[in-house]
Structures are given as C-alpha cells and as structure tokens.
C-alpha cells in the first residue's frame, strides 16, 4: 500500500479533483471495478477477427459529451446506426494515440467505399485543460477530418471511462516546464451499429487487421 499512497500523492485521478474528498473513493471504485467487475476478454478464437471478444458485451456508455464543433454528442443517440470506434486519449500524447489514430485512418481510407468505410472514430480528450475543441480540431484534422473529438467535464469523462470498466485516468503533477503526463486506457472499443461493443482492440492493432475487421463489424459480425 505504501507504493499506492506514494503514487496517489503525486497523481490526480480524473473526475475526483473537484470533489476533493472523493478522490480516494473514486480511485478505489475504479480499482475494484477493474479487479472484480471488468468483463473478461477471451483469447482470440479461430474467427479470424483481431482484438479480443468482450464477454459479456458492453453497452455504449450513457453519457453526453460536447463535440469539437461545440455540439452536444450523446454517445447512445448520436452513434445509433453507425459502427463506432471509441478511444480515450489526449492530444499531447506523442506515442500511443497517434499510432492508433494514424493506423486506423489508413485502414478506413483503404476500405474506400461500402461497409466499414463509414466507421465513426470517436476520440475522447481526457486532458480537458489542454484538449480544447480547437486543439482537437487541429489534432484530428491532421489525421483524418472525419474523426470526431469529444470533451466534457472531468466527472463525465470519468463516468464514461468507468462504464467501460477501464482503470481510472490519471493526470500527473506538472514538471518545472508545466509539462505533465496522462495515464489513459489504451483499448479501442468497437461498437456495432446497435451500440454494443463485442470486441476491443489493442492500440497497436495492425492496419491490415482493421481493414479486415471494420467491414465485418459494420455488418454486425463480431466473431
């Protein structure tokens, strides 16, 4: 526990900052969820799909964000009928986030037309201080202009993160230059058009695997 306490002393858990006393509770809630209630991901079968099967399947989180154009975006209502990839990241992230986003961008472009080509890529910017709508427009616009950035108050982002049983998002203390690091989920949740995630994918899933799976996910197939 010593390590955990030391870690907590220099970290802020997203969604718990404003609540003050709620910090430890929120962290604990997330941890216990991760240990006890997280859906199991079964090792891949002979289906030919990449990523991992989520059992039981997970519903789209019931939260409303603000998109990078300033419009309300209800995950459930506004993604209904559209195959959707959901990922939590931050725009100052030089590594994991652009690797995933660039790869899936090239995969969707390679599909060109037909099922899967209309996959909506959603990027939740968890670092609300820096992930402004303008910043996300620049960031995602430089990768693929159809990708949509989402923001909200930290408590809303933490709620969505929790509904997907991901470990809590952490914001590190800033260094002398004001730079700080962010810990965030690296999983990409793939929702079929009915708003159910049957598979998630590691951030470094290969372009060919995306190009193979996205058309089938768009047809409602997942195993």
């Amino acid at each position, binding site marked *: 526990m010593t390590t955990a306490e030391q870690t907590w002393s220099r970290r802020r858990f997203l969604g718990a900052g404003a609540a003050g006393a709620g910090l430890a509770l929120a962290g604990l809630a997330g941890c216990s969820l991760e240990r006890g209630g997280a859906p199991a991901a079964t090792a891949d079968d002979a289906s030919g799909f990449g990523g991992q099967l989520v059992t039981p399947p997970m519903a789209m989180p019931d939260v409303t964000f603000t998109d990078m154009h300033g419009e309300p975006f209800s995950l459930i209502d506004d993604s209904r009928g559209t195959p959707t990839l959901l990922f939590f990241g931050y725009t*100052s992230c*030089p590594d*994991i986030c652009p690797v995933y986003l*660039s790869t899936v961008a*090239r995969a969707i472009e390679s599909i060109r037309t037909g099922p899967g080509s209309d996959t909506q890529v959603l990027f939740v910017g968890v670092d609300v201080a820096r992930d402004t709508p303008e*910043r996300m427009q620049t960031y995602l616009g430089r990768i693929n202009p159809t990708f949509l950035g989402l923001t909200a108050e930290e408590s809303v982002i933490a709620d969505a993160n929790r509904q997907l049983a991901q*470990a809590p998002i*952490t914001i590190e203390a800033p260094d002398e230059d004001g730079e700080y690091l962010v810990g965030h*989920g*690296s999983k990409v949740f793939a929702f079929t058009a009915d708003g159910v995630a049957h598979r998630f994918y590691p951030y470094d899933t290969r372009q060919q695997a995306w190009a193979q799976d996205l058309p089938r996910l768009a047809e409602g197939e997942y195993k």
Partner: protein
Amino acid sequence: MTVRPRLLPVLLVAALALVAAAGCGTGGGSDATASDPSGSITVEGATIDWPPNPETALVRFAIDNASATEDHLVAVTSPVGDATIHRSDVDEAGTATMSPVDRVTIAPRSSVQFAPGGLHVMLTGITADLQVGDEVPITLTLEGAGEVSFEATVVEPGSVGDDTADPGGAHDHS
C-alpha cells in the same frame, strides 16, 4: 511561428527523403548515419512522424554500439523544442502510461530502438511548423562517446503493420 535558424529544411535532402518515402510506403527515414568521432556509436534511420499536435513530436531512431564496452545515453537536445526520453508502457489493465527515463544503457555490440510503444525521444514546446521533409537537428550525449549529432527527417506518419514500423529495420547499412 518562425522557423528557428538552425532548423534548415535542405531542399535536396527533403526531395531525397520524399523519394525514399514514396519508394517504401511511408516514412523511409534518413539514409544518413551519424557517429561519434571514435565510430563506436552510430545512429540510423532517424525520423519524426509528422505530428498531429504541432507542438509535440516523437523521434524514432536506432542507436548502435559497436564497441566492446557499454555506454549510456544521458541527454538529448534539439533546437526545435525540449527533448526528453520517455518509455511508454501498457499495463495489464490496459492503461497506457509514459515515464521519464534518465539514462539508457546501450550494451556492447548491440543496438537500442527508439520507437513508438517503447523507448522514445519526445520533443515538446515545438514552435516551428514542421513539414514533411524537414530535417530536425538532434544531439545525443553519451557518457562514453560524447556527443552524436544527426538530423531526423519529418515523414508522413506510418501505420502499424507497414514495412517501416520498425525504424531502421527495412534499411541495411552494413
């Protein structure tokens, strides 16, 4: 948004880099290698993926130690921004984190890859508007070999699974 004087997009080199990139998908990397005066430390395949966030970029390269003694990378500098070494990790719960790294050991007769998902050099506070083809000066400081300077070529971002995901891997300089 002025380009600092030491960031010189050399047209010829930029053109060559573009040809190289076109020839092998995306991001072929610089074919130039850089060594310290003794020749024991060599840097190859230095590239920067054109960053989606103009202020933050990641430098990929391979550093090779041909000598019989281990060496340690202790500092990185660049005129375009603050350079730091980090390591990315994904834990069992799937959480992605980065941690600062103070010192990287390069064992005798071995090489260390700086690439996404692991060790990397991060540039922050970039004010220049980096464009594909630009050459960004980078200087490494090693405890034994001293300084090694090279230029990293800004390339179109690759994707996982293409033949350039492994920096230097597609280029044999032997």
